[in-house]
């Protein structure tokens, strides 16, 4: 700063001792240690306040997304892929692949929602889609995070026509341009001007299904059997809720 006078600019040769003595190493280390400890404490306190709010928001976003891609689902349960089969047991879930099984109000399994991410046009597109193993159909799709070109590729997140294309479409999905659509069951009409992003969404879903379809179908058949038997047992009475579900 120009307004600051340089210290000791006129002190040369005088008997005045230097104003600032060199600090000892111990003082340097202890200053930074104390400052670091205080900073750590402050951050921990704020973190403890923020963590439940951040988690609640994440759960809310996930719940909304699951409801959206599994139309009619009112609750969902997270199941984890251990080896080559799914389980609801939560032994050590860290790093395990997981999907969400949605149930409707009557406790009937509605479909399986799963997250998938792959490269889009500019950045990774992270999306959630619903899959109905009984029909082998994709029944809904919503983009969770993306960084596509605003006004063009970003339409995959909000273009309702495009998102509606995923409501009941046979697998594997086939992306077609608007003027080439033949109205077949596995066709997804891509967005004009956002072909790369649309194609990426389709590829993400196909790849994910390719990799996980077998265990999902296997788990689904056990669910279906369980649902039938429980229906037979309760015979007309209100159906029991699935165990340990994440409430919506």
């Amino acid at each position, binding site marked *: 700063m120009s307004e*600051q006078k340089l210290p000791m600019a006129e002190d040369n040769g005088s008997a005045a001792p230097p104003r600032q003595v060199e600090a000892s190493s111990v003082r340097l280390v202890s200053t*930074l240690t104390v400052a670091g400890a205080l*900073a750590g404490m*402050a951050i921990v306190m*704020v973190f403890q*306040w*923020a963590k439940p709010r951040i988690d609640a*928001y994440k759960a809310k976003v996930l719940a909304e997304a699951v409801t959206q891609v599994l139309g009619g689902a009112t609750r969902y349960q997270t199941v984890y892929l251990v080896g080559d089969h799914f389980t609801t047991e939560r032994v050590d879930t860290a790093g395990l692949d997981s999907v969400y099984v949605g149930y409707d109000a009557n406790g009937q399994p509605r479909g399986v929602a799963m997250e998938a991410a792959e490269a889009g046009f500019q950045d990774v597109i992270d999306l959630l889609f619903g899959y109905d193993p009984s029909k082998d159909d994709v029944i809904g799709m919503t983009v969770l995070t993306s960084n596509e070109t*605003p006004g*063009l590729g970003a339409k995959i997140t909000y273009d309702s026509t495009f998102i509606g294309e995923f409501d009941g479409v046979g697998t594997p999905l086939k992306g077609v341009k608007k003027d080439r659509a033949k109205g077949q069951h596995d066709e997804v009409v891509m967005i004009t001007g956002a072909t790369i992003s649309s194609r990426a969404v389709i590829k993400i879903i196909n790849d994910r299904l390719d990799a996980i379809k077998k265990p999902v179908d296997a788990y689904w058949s056990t669910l279906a059997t369980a649902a039938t038997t429980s229906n037979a047992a309760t015979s007309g009475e209100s159906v029991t809720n699935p165990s340990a579900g994440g409430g919506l």
Partner: protein
Amino acid sequence: MRTTTPQEDFIRGIWKENPVLVQLLGLCPTLAVTGTVDNALTMGIATFFVLLGSSLLVSMFKSVIPKEVRISAYILVIATFVTIADLVLHAVVPEIHKSLGPFVPLIVVNCIILGRQEAFASKNTVARATLDAVGTGFGFIIAMMIMGSVREILGNGSWLGHPLLGAHFQPWVIMVLPPGGFFTLGFVLLGIAWWKGRSAVAVRPRRWPHGVTTEVGGPAS
């Protein structure tokens, strides 16, 4: 040694030494997150908070911090405030936090903040450092708002999410893309340079015919 008044400490950061528009510091967030007004405003407020908190602490403890480790200590203080701001934004406005992406943590390396600590807060009283931080912080917010307003109005036809230009307006998509940031900043800086040049010309003595010398704007002879 006090050579400036409190008003000058405050005003300096807003206009005469505006961190973005005059000193051209902190251009990374200015270009990156001003696509919409709410992003720009949130980023401005987060930076304001970090700057004010750091200036307060640094000016308070300036005699305790040995000069050999002062930069490390400043960075520690700044990083703490940035982490707090990041967590609070994540908890309170998660949508905006998501769209700001890595730019909140990157406030740590914003040279506006470290610059104010080294050049001002570490050498002045708490009161003056606070005024300076508030002024500089407001200067940053103002610059962010100018950028965000221009880009959102032209690029999206809205301001703070409210439609402004009607359904017939075709948004200039490029304005919310990175090139739009450079265009906007360039034109804003051009405007400021023009305005400064104009006021500099205005006080230059002019020679009139018949040997009369006067200053434009002064009393005519």
